């Protein structure tokens, strides 16, 4: 390996057979390149989906109501089911051990907010203080609602970043009065949400205030919960599905709704959704791997083919070398040494080039579901070695055979 004479011999051979070397190198480099790019985009899609789920707490459950469609216990379909504060109080007592954050939501329709000359229409929702964590909102100024606001029926609001931009521009918003449907509210906080503009164009006020000021009585539009963490993702998914189903059927029973009537009372849990996405992601990742491995196999076959042709082409040369005293192993060594050298250089070039490409364009890619495609360096480097070893093996057998041919037969080959 460190025989300088051998290296000189190999460099000479490579220098004088540029096309052959180039073609071998190209097939190896492109194989690695394609694989790294594929794996990079697989990772990019995983990142993208993970980002989609950042906008809300990952283990969220939402329950909401609608109109019954099924006749049940003598009651006609077409009734509008409304949740009440008592439903909420019962639920949080019943599932005290399972729920981490909880809030019921009262939504005010046609919420037009006005500040001085600026105004806009936003989703206005009465919520409990916990709602901040259910929404995964973080405050950029001031504070979120608290239980004092709730108990004191305070006329205070927390506005989304989009609302703040629309109404205030860059001015200080905390302490200012904003009119919602003609009623004054004091801004106590501005929040941002990983979900982006859609999630940031909302206004939150205390549930108690919203029900009193906007004639809500004790009605609740929907309820949101998050669950306490579980040991594993699988357990969390099972738990989440079980709890959301239980809550749904508990409420259905209380409001005399047929168990199968999902348009009257329905629930959604983000983990079940997330699991579906993650399963899909796993499938896509698997697919990328399969394609990648097929690419590598194609690369290996390509390299093998080239090695076979090279050995075939050099059979006469091998015969000459043997006639003037080359040992069989020195011939095998020469061919393998050269092929490993070429595949290694080409493999690393492909690796460096593809990784550089991912580094440069990766962070600039802003497509839904693809975020920062990147590749695990260890995986990439392993692939390079697999290809080198495969190339060496593929070269070994024809080289071994060629070295065993009697020189007289090799010399006859034209």
């Amino acid at each position, binding site marked *: 390996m460190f025989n300088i004479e051998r290296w000189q011999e190999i460099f000479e051979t490579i220098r*004088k057979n540029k096309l052959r070397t180039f073609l071998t190198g190209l097939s190896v480099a492109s194989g690695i390149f394609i694989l790294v790019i594929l794996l990079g985009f697989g990772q990019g899609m995983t990142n993208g989906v993970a980002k989609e789920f950042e906008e809300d707490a990952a283990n969220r459950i939402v329950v909401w109501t609608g109109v019954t469609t099924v006749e049940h216990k003598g009651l006609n379909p077409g009734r509008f089911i409304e949740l009440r504060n008592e439903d909420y109080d019962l639920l949080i007592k019943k599932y005290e051990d399972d729920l981490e954050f909880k809030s019921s939501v009262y939504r005010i329709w046609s919420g037009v907010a006005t500040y001085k000359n600026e105004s806009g229409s936003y989703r206005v929702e009465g919520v409990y203080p916990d709602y901040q964590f259910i929404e995964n909102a973080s405050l950029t100024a001031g504070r979120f609602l608290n239980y004092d606001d709730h108990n004191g029926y305070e006329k205070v609001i927390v506005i989304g970043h989009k609302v703040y931009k629309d109404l205030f521009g860059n001015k200080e918003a905390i302490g200012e009065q904003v009119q919602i449907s003609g009623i004054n509210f004091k801004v106590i906080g501005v929040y941002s949400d990983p979900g982006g503009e859609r999630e940031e164009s909302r206004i939150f006020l205390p549930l108690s205030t919203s029900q009193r000021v906007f004639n809500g009585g004790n009605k609740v539009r929907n309820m949101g919960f998050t669950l306490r963490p579980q040991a594993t993702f699988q357990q969390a998914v099972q738990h989440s599905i079980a709890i959301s189903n239980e809550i749904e059927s508990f409420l259905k029973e209380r409001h005399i709704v047929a168990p199968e009537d999902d348009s009257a009372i329905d629930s959604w849990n983000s983990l079940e959704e997330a699991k579906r996405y993650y399963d899909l992601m796993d499938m896509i990742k698997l697919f990328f791997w399969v394609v990648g491995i097929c690419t590598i196999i194609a690369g290996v076959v390509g390299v093998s083919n080239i090695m076979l042709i090279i050995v075939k082409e050099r059979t*006469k*040369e091998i015969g*000459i*070398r*043997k006639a003037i*005293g080359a*040992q*069989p*192993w020195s011939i095998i060594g020469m061919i393998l040494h050269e092929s490993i050298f070429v595949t290694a250089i080409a493999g690393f070039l492909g690796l460096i080039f593809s990784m550089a490409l991912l580094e440069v364009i990766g962070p600039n890619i802003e497509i839904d579901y693809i975020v920062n495609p990147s590749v695990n360096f260890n995986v990439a480097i392993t692939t390079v070695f697999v290809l080198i070893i495969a190339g060496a093996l593929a070269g070994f057998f024809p080289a071994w055979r060629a070295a065993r041919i009697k020189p007289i037969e090799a010399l006859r080959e034209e």
Partner: protein
Amino acid sequence: MIEITDLHKSYVMGTNTLHVLKGIDFTVNEGELVAIMGSSGSGKSTLLNILGMLDEADQGTYTLDGTLIHNLNEKIAARYRNKFLGFVFQSFNLISYKNALENVAMPLYYQGVKRNERNEKAMHYLEKVGLAEWATHLPNELSGGQKQRVAIARALASEPKVLLADEPTGALDSTTSYEVMEIIQSINDEGKTILIVTHEDDIAHMCKRIVNLKDGIIIDDSIISQVRVKATSHV
């Protein structure tokens, strides 16, 4: 130098067995210049291949410079070839992507001679065949005669005991053939043992002894008076 007794060789071609050598007894002393003649199919090339350890005999003994050549594996054959023998082929068999000097230096590479010494020696042998100024040319830039002279220089480079030439002039016109023969004669004058397979009478008569093969046996083996190639016929 070379001693052969009762050598047999046959080739299996499908269902037929072709008995090529049918008991050859043959001795060559040091410093001889022997022509092996015979029509095609007489077994002369097969004999040379066996002598060159490129092929193996089925039966009989072969002693080269006091060493009994038998049960050759590839490794030992390679070592003996490198140590004892130099080859000159009809089709030159130069490595096409190496220049004249590198071709000549090749056997030395396999002897483990260092690069500088290798090139120096190779240059010396190129000078000997009159091609010093062609050292950096690739084989396809040389004429047939020049190629064969490079091949002779290569065969000499490893300083072999015996030089084996298989139809060395077969691909050359008569003028260049004589040039090549002149070099072979001058090498022989220095004491090198040389065996030449040929079917050309004039070439054979430039040797010192002619062995005639027919149908796998020696039918005639006689010392002749050598025809010297005139030194003016080239340069």
